[in-house]
């Protein structure tokens, strides 16, 4: 037991590896939120009138909404007037023409994060594997690489503010159709104040030639980030999108409320992967990011597929439920998740699978790991509508507890209105088995390595789903958060 306490202490003592602050002048909107701030954001982005109206409508609606309290999360009330809603690097007004003109400070930040901004082979030895990076530094995209190669096949991959200028009709057609502005408290807030994000359009029949990737990074103090991502995969197309996040160490709680909308038309497939490693707060639960995210995919066409994979290791508060609306017949939704909560972190995460079409199927694999004094909740909904004949769902949520101060909770909602549907749900909660640990130890594997081995095995089903570029980082993250821990 004492050994356990020691190693858990080590685990708790780990410093946030990516905790540094880079000093770049920011252009702020005044603190707080009102219609003027929204007009400021809109004007700053040079947006069309319909979007300003959309934002203002959302804001007025937001004023009437109440903060949701149903999640198993405990945090002080957020003062929404005590945050900045827009922050852009100074260089915004005269955008760099090439990568050489980018603020070197900014490039160094990315270098520390290990993002290859320059065009280059991503992994040595991997032939022609390329990653396009749309780097979001606070709110404004600075450099987008690989653009030309993508445009050759007709793929549009750009900041959403740019898409509003170059492809306004596409944005207008799809924005808010999956997550309406009235969806929930945080999505409504996002609709009012979103400043940046990615826009992806894959034309019919195109298989996107590379993994698309966006690194988000919250930088300016007290600036909440409100990304808006919109991905449309037209008929018969395929895209794999990666989202990864690290944020500098800070004391104030930072608010983050992103919205991600995915639309898959007939026979299209979208694979969306996330590694989230924002600042989780220190060992006393001070600071850390508050992460309230609405992610939803709409399988609009028949035989379409949307797959969510997430590795959630950061943030003080995680409130995130990537969902799939399985509208098209034979469409498929998947959700693979690893949520690691340590110290005073709280995670309430899961998914929603709404089966509307015939023969739709969904698969949910959730692995929750709690350590320190953390609380980890899986909350998920599987809903089969009356017309979804032959719908199929399989759900598995496993929780692993490291230490006796943490909590692991499972709150699944399973609803079926169709006798032809088959639903299966199973969940287990356990600690690292003494037998497994003993087996490893007796073969000379040190405790630390043995725990890492066992936990990696516990998460394997999810890690396997990540694209290779991410799998490396994710495995490292799981490893880091387990250094020195023991069962």
């Amino acid at each position: 037991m004492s050994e356990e306490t020691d190693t858990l202490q080590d685990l708790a003592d780990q410093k946030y590896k990516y905790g540094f602050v880079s000093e770049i002048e920011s252009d702020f909107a005044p603190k707080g939120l009102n219609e003027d701030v929204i007009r400021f954001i809109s004007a700053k982005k040079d947006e069309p009138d319909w979007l300003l109206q959309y934002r203002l409508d959302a804001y007025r609606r937001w004023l009437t909404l109440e903060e949701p309290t149903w999640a198993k999360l405990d945090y002080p009330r957020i003062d929404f007037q005590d945050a900045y809603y827009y922050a852009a690097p100074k260089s915004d007004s005269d955008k760099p023409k090439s990568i050489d003109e980018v603020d070197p400070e900014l490039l160094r930040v990315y270098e520390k994060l290990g993002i290859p901004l320059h065009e280059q082979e991503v992994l040595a030895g991997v032939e022609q594997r390329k990653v396009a990076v749309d780097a979001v530094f606070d709110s404004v995209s600075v450099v987008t690489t690989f653009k030309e190669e993508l445009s050759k096949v007709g793929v549009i991959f750009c900041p959403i503010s740019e898409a509003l200028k170059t492809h306004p009709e596409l944005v207008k057609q799809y924005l808010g159709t999956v997550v309406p502005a009235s969806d929930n408290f945080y999505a409504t807030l996002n609709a009012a104040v979103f400043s940046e994000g990615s826009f992806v359009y894959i034309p019919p029949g195109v298989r996107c030639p590379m993994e698309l990737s966006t690194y988000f990074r919250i930088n300016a103090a007290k600036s909440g980030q409100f990304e808006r991502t919109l991905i449309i995969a037209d008929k018969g197309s395929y895209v794999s999108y990666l989202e990864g996040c690290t944020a500098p160490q800070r004391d104030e709680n930072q608010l983050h409320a992103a919205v991600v909308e995915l639309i898959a038309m007939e026979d299209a497939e979208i694979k969306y992967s996330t590694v989230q490693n924002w600042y989780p707060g220190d060992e006393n639960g001070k600071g850390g990011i508050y992460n309230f995210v609405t992610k939803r995919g709409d399988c609009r066409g028949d035989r379409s597929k949307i797959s969510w994979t997430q590795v959630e290791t950061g943030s003080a508060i995680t409130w995130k439920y990537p969902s799939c609306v399985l509208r098209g017949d034979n469409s498929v939704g998947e959700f693979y998740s690893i949520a690691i909560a340590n110290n005073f972190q709280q995670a309430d995460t899961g998914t929603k699978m709404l089966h509307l079409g015939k023969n739709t199927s969904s698969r949910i694999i959730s692995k929750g790991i709690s350590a320190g004094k953390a609380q980890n909740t899986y909350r998920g909904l599987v809903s089969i509508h009356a017309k979804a004949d032959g719908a199929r769902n399989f759900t598995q949520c496993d929780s692993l507890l490291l230490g006796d101060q943490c909590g692991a909770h499972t709150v699944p909602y399973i609803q079926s209105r169709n006798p032809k549907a088959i639903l299966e749900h199973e969940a287990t909660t356990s600690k690292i088995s003494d037998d497994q640990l003993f087996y490893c130890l007796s073969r000379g594997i040190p405790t630390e390595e043995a725990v890492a081995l066992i936990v990696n095995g516990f998460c394997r089903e999810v890690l396997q789903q990540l694209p290779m570029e991410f799998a490396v980082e994710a495995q490292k993250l799981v490893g880091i958060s387990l250094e020195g821990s023991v069962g």
Partner: protein
Amino acid sequence: MAKVVSLDNLLASVAARRSEAAPWLGALIDAASEKFAHVGLPNRRIEAWRYSDLAKALHETVKVESDLDAPPALAEACVAAFENGVLDDSKSSYCAMGAQSLRKVLAEKDSPFAGIIGRINPQADHPIINLNTALMEEGLVLHVPKGVTLATPLHLRFNWSGVDAASADGRHLRILVVLDEDAEATLFESHDGAPSFATVVTELSLAPNSKLTHVRLENFAAAARQTAATVGSVGEKAAYRGFYFSQGGHFARHEALMKLAGEEADARIDAAYMVADKRHCDNTTVMDHAVPNTTSTQVFRGVLAGSSRGVYQGCVKVAQAAQKTDARQLSRAMLLSHRAEIVTKPELEIFADDVKCSHGATAGELDANALFFLRARGIPEAEARAMLVEAFLIEAMDTVENEAMRAIVIACAHTWMLRHAGEASHVE
């Protein structure tokens, strides 16, 4: 037209009750009514009542059938017969086993049960238990002394004719069963007919080494509106064996709120529910593991036909101190119709690391291959369906140890199957 049950009427009745209550009871009523007034009648905005909106159900008009099924008769049992929510001594024989009526206990200036009623595994924020505490009038109190094993079961027979002009605020019944150390008892609860609105709260206190077998049969008519709760505390090495059968009603909900309060306490619940037509059937459980080394098992099986709605909400709570908990939970539901609906919410809330907790939930229909197998052997479809439904449920019913009770349960299931299991799911 009868008065609609409303918060104002209920609170007025509470005030009237309060004025004539003994001081100990008055204090209890005050605390409960204050909490109840704050929350009001539960509606779907309250998470625990999300799928069972009682406030709405009470506003709907229901039509009471004229020919109601007669309540079952259990041979060799002491009976406490409640006719329309009132204890009928002429049909009862509970005195033989030392039970007494709640009305008598409540009227006492200083009752030995004063410190027990409402204090077994207290549910301070439960709206219905608070309402029941504030308005309880009829009921039964059974105390089994140390080391005594009651050979004959106690049959709590609730029968409702459906016409209840006397009480517009509904009927609120309270049962209290206290088992001292090493005591054993068997409880058989049957609910028949159509209460216009009833709440029944059964409090069970199981001292160390005691054992209670609890068979609960809800055989309501379609118009019945009842919400019931079994609230228990299971002491060291004590065992609770529950079997619940329910057919649902216009609004039928039963909650089992069990606290495993002593080491090596064990609670096991097997349940079968068969719901048809437009009925609503809600089974809610909370297994609260408060100390180390306790075990709980729940197996719920349901069959849903017509446009019925079945709800299963099961929660397993494991406190930080409750290491070595072993908790299992299984919910299986079968939909026989395209308009039926099942909602399942199997929840785990775990604060201890050295535990084994698992839950499983499935929903589906009758196995087409099995049906084909039977049909190919010349068994008519309706009969084949009934056979498969029976095979699905019989596992739960086999857990009823008492043969007479098992026979009654199986007879109820058979009657139901004759009426509904033949309903073909594809002909809608």
